[in-house]
């Protein structure tokens, strides 16, 4: 039983990690808490759903939706954050701007797809299961985990070994110095938003597939949990976000099994609150963006 719950925790944690990475990446690079991240998470799931329903093969629908999410991220930056950068607004203004953008996105989604919960066509999803000893693992879960890990590995590679990654780290470290040294700020920021939003969108699609449920409020459910994860991991640390996500995934699934499920969410926020009070930099703090 314990092993089964741990496995479930890993599946959950992987998707949480994809979401949290995008959240923390934007904060690490731009010092912005982007509350529209969850809206893109939700929109990507709907886009994938609609594309699949229109007849595209599932993998194509997913791929296109992920790219769409990335582009939405760039658009979000252009509309809601870039103007604020130009006029040097204070640090809390982008937060409120992101809320405005999120509300607009939710409104558009509700208008297009309606408030009802929607599902992928049953034929698109595989219900195959594997039994490994005492473990029961769905083929779908494995695919989701595989995609999530692949994305994380790709991100790690980009940040560590490419020129773009170096630019991102430079901007995160010191924006002004990076500009002096010739880094194209706006291009780097746009690409950061693309990556972060694509990952967040991927998380939305994968969670939508895993639970076969896509609804307008799926973003708000994960948004606050995402906050707890990035605080736990350390705002700005991608590795921290991943670790925090798996910890939360494990704690959530284990606590449902062993403690009352009704207080489950409170655990995440309680831990987050304690960390903010006693160790605001979390597990790995902001400097760790360099070591993704």
């Amino acid at each position, binding site marked *: 039983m314990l092993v089964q719950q741990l496995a479930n925790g890993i599946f959950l944690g992987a998707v949480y990690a994809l979401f949290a990475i995008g959240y923390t990446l934007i904060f690490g690079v731009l010092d912005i808490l982007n509350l529209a991240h969850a809206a893109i998470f939700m929109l990507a799931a709907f886009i994938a759903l609609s594309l699949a329903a229109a007849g595209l093969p599932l993998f194509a629908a997913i791929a296109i939706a992920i790219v769409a999410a990335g582009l939405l991220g760039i658009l979000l930056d252009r509309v*809601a954050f870039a103007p604020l950068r130009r006029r040097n607004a204070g*640090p809390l203004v982008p937060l409120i701007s992101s*809320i*405005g*953008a999120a509300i607009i996105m939710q409104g558009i989604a*509700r*208008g297009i797809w309606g408030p009802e919960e929607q599902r992928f066509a049953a034929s698109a999803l595989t219900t195959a299961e594997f039994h490994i000893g005492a473990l029961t693992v769905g083929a779908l879960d494995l695919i989701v985990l595989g995609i999530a890990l692949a994305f994380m590995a790709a991100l790690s590679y980009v940040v560590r070994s490419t020129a773009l990654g170096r630019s991102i780290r430079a901007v995160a470290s010191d924006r002004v110095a990076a500009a002096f040294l010739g880094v194209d700020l706006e291009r780097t920021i746009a690409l950061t938003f693309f990556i972060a939003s694509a990952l967040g969108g991927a998380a939305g699609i994968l969670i939508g597939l895993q639970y076969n449920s896509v609804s307008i409020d799926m973003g708000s459910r994960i948004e606050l949990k995402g*906050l707890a994860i990035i605080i736990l991991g350390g705002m700005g640390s991608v590795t921290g976000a991943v670790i925090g996500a798996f910890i939360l995934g494990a704690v959530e699934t284990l606590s449902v099994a062993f403690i009352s499920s009704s207080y489950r969410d409170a655990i995440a926020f309680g831990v*987050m*609150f304690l960390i903010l009070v006693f160790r605001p930099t979390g597990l790995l703090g902001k400097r760790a963006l360099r070591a993704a």
Partner: protein
Amino acid sequence: MISFYAAHSKLIDEIGINALLALSLSISLRAGSLALAQAAFMGIAGYVSALGAVRYGWNLAEAALAGALAAGAVAALLALPIGRLRGVFLAIATIGFGEIARIIEINLKVTGGAEGFSGIPNDANTLSIYGTLALVGTVLWLIGRTKFALAVAATREDENAARGVGINVSAVRMTTLVAGACVAGLAGALYAHANFFITPGDFGFPRMEQILVACVVGGVTSSIGAALGALLMTVLPELVRFLHDYREVSTGAILLGIILFAPGGIAGLWQRRT
């Protein structure tokens, strides 16, 4: 005139309560603290006043006072651990507090759990709501003319400089947090007594966002601004009925527009004209 009121009394009451809530947030924002716990304080007071009225037969004034005091007490306790936090971290900590409060409310038997608490006497009428609003507004205006208000503004503008001239920044921030909580508490009690039914979901993050939007649109550091913002944002969904499911877009667009083009809110726009 009378028939207009009769047809829209629920909306008018809602505007009043939202104005009180926006006012309560503006108190903290005036000190530069993005403390996003108003919805939680509203909820705590709402439940306290509802329980008091139903179990002990308190009248509206007693229940509201009890609610405000309860909210203020919780705020004072909360201010201790989060006193050192600034900016985004303070915002997140208060959001977390709000979630914890909501989850506790869902789980407590005595408050009816997730199904909510019903049977609250419906004794908050438009007069009591707007009377409270006027009272709070007047008190804030009077305080605005004291040295404390200057200390608050100084804390907002430059905390280190304020400390440098001897202002007790921690005390200022704690006071504004508690004061804001008390006002939110009054609003919460009125809310509970205006709708005879409350649920934990009424006091979660969506409500907090709603209050923040009203405050920002109106102008964060102005009482009149907060009230106007609440007026606009409460009435807006009714005005854009024709957008059907797309209604929210108007709310987001106004918020974004204000942030991008008129960061001082409606109050800021007015000041620029004169």
